[in-house]
């Protein structure tokens, strides 16, 4: 079993519209359902949300700016770490991730298993 990191990229256009409290509660419910599904399959290791703000430290001069965090002003809303045998399986686990419904994206990256090289 390998570990994969799922990185949630918010869609800037979708996040520009302020959701109402009711819509936020509904959105949270969707995330809970999706994550509970991963956990039920024993694939889930952990997840964290990220604040929509922060600073970027860049280059040898260590210039600190407010962002954008990556090019194109996209914001990473959070990440999850999951278990899967293959990259394809990890990709499959993103099915039902609520961010996809908002035209956001999930980046799936294998986490290097150092024991493998030991």
């Amino acid at each position: 079993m390998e570990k994969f990191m799922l990185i949630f990229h918010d869609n800037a256009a979708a996040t520009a519209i302020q959701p109402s409290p009711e819509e936020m509660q509904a959105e949270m419910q969707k995330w809970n359902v999706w994550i509970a599904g991963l956990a039920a399959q024993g694939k889930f290791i952990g997840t964290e949300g990220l604040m929509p703000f922060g600073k970027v430290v860049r280059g040898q001069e260590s210039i600190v700016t407010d962002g954008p965090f990556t090019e194109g002003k996209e914001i990473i809303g959070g990440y999850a770490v999951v278990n899967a045998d293959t990259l394809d399986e990890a990709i499959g686990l993103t099915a039902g991730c609520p961010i996809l419904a908002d035209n956001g994206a999930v980046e799936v990256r294998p986490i290097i298993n150092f024991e493998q090289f030991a």
Partner: protein
Amino acid sequence: MCEPQNSSQLVEHFFRQEAGRMASVLTCWLGFGRLGLAEDIVQDTLMQALHAWPAQGIPDNPRAWLYRVAKNRALDVLRREKQLRHVGDDQLSEFTETDAPDMERLFFDDELNDSQLRMLFACCHPALSAEAQQAMCLKILCGLSVREIAHAFLTAPDTIEKRLYRAKERIRQNNIELAVPAGVSLTSRLNSVLRSVYLLFNEGYASHQPDELIRYDLCAEALRLARLLTEHPRTSVPATYALLALLCFQAARFKARHTSTDDIILLAHQDRSLWDRDLIDRGQYYLNRAATGNQLTDYHLEAAIAACHSMAPTYETTNWPQILHYYDLLLVCKPSPVVALNRAVALARVAGPLQALADVTNLTGLDHSQYYHAVLGDLYAENQQPEPARHHYRRAQQLTFSLAEKTLLERKVASL
């Protein structure tokens, strides 16, 4: 990183209700002039919960979590303002860190209700038009977004945005205080609050809004505000209990009023087993609480009429003479052609359609009401006069914008 707990579900509308509570508390603390800031803090706080809770599980006390975050944000803002003030801007008010303990107190239940009531009185100030009052209540106290309010009032978000902006300006210009009034001004101010809650409920109860969900939401929020008023010693007067009783009785019938395809089901044909018994019992309880003192308001009478309906096992066995009696009294305290029109419906059940027709045809000022023509249609139909009945049903059809009402009237014409 931690495992998400198998988080228990949040109560329905939790975010919305807490948004209203937090906005009230923060505004009482920061001052009405910074209502916009308070609303921003609330939005940020809920966004933070949205990002954190799916990962960490819903906290054991979600409300305390929200209030802690909101409080910290407010303090951050104040600290920043204080720093700015050193640069020379003395327009900002003089909040200090020492105000923080007060903030803790503000989030206690009593104070919470108090802040919301103060906000309710500010939002329902007579200097604001009825529609502005409702928009303010829905936005600030009920946590509805501009889009949702626009949807509820069948208008564009821009219109609501402007309405809210003007209302806030008005509140500023008139120096309207965030306070529950006392003494002589209490009665008239409370009347205006009760009226606004009543109208808010009516807006939800009217059948011209095609989306059942948003209509139900308006009624639920009106009920919540009315309940809030019964929880404060200064506002828990008989009229408040009577209004709450009325809203409970009316809300009890909500699920029986439409078919699954949104067709209207009139009182006579409703499946009474669908009426919400719990709400009816609560209505009864509040009506009893309203029966103190010597004040008989129109809310008392309307609640009493609604109570008669809710207790009748069938339409035919309804105590119509009793209802007619209440309408007679109501006509004295609220003389209006609309009340007279409703009275005529009861009169038809007691004395027959001919007598009711005589009354209704004498009413003036209702020619543009679809309900006036629909009642006339019904009375003529009952009196075996299909031609005038058809005429009035057609007139009512032209006057309503509601598809459901048009369909209902079409059915009536077809059955002539």
